């Protein structure tokens, strides 16, 4: 078990093994997302109330899902890196931050575009949108912090601490924003009614969520591999890799 753990912690081993299943992941990701997009855009029935604008849900919900999950992935990687001094975990954490921020942006953007035909306005201070915005700020804080340290080790340690503090805070932030929203305006419009959705609408959503998970894993791997090359560029194996190309 421990041997396996240390092996996984070796950036070189990780780079080689991840290179092997990267193409499969890419294929799965493209197939799932393409299926989901075509199914969602053309073949899923339109919503009785919202019409075709409802089709944005197939991007919005998976992106929101992974935006939040991504923060926990980042914090978990940071914790592992801090506790076991595992270099690879630090790299995963650094790789997860911009990816999570981009997904949060997608969730916010699709939410706003969806809002225009539904509520007649691009921006509404809905509880979920507001929480998403705060999440984006948390990501931006981490990215800004990670860029201002001169050494990568210190930067990773600092970001891990901030990510952990943020993780403790996220449930409080979500609860407080929820409560704030019910205080100011009763919830008349629910953005997604996933549980009460018609199965024909729900199936493509499931495909898209799976596709987004694959996409997240794929980009996280790619970012981590870049980070590995960057950090290990003075080692012999990276030099051999550069010459072999």
């Amino acid at each position: 078990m421990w041997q396996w753990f240390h092996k996984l912690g070796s950036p070189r081993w990780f780079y080689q093994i991840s290179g092997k299943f990267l193409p499969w992941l890419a294929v799965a990701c493209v197939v799932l997302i393409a299926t989901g997009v075509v199914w969602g855009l053309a073949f899923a029935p339109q919503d009785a109330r919202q019409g075709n604008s409802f089709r944005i849900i197939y991007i919005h919900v998976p992106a929101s899902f992974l935006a939040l999950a991504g923060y926990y992935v980042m914090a978990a990687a940071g914790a592992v890196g801090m506790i076991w001094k595992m270099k690879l975990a630090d790299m995963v954490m650094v790789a997860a931050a911009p990816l999570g921020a981009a997904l949060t942006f997608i969730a916010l953007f699709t939410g706003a575009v969806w809002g225009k035909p539904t509520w007649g306005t691009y921006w509404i201070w809905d509880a979920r949108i507001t929480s998403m915005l705060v999440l984006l700020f948390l990501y931006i804080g981490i990215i800004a912090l990670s860029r201002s340290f001169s050494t990568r080790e210190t930067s990773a340690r600092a970001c891990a601490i901030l990510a952990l503090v943020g993780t403790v805070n996220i449930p409080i932030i979500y609860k407080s924003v929820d409560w704030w929203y019910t205080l100011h305006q009763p919830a008349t419009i629910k953005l997604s009614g996933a549980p009460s959705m018609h199965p024909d609408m729900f199936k493509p959503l499931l495909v898209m969520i799976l596709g987004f998970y694959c996409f997240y894993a794929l980009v996280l791997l790619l970012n981590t591999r870049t980070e590995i090359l960057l950090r290990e560029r003075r080692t012999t194996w990276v030099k051999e890799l550069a010459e072999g190309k």
Partner: protein
Amino acid sequence: MFQFENFDAFIAMGGHGPYVWGAYGISLAVMAWLALAPLRRQRALLVDLRTQLLRTQQQAQRRRGESQ
């Protein structure tokens, strides 16, 4: 089953076309960029490394040539 009567209706999306296509277009573009950016960076990094290695090798050779 295809939900629209013809291709034009599919593009128009019952009047919601710009919103739906805009949301899908921008999102997918961002996602494509997310996937391609690290690949491009990796390639640039490896090319950089290789030229650096070649330069140090050449320097070493030249030094050896001078000393002989």
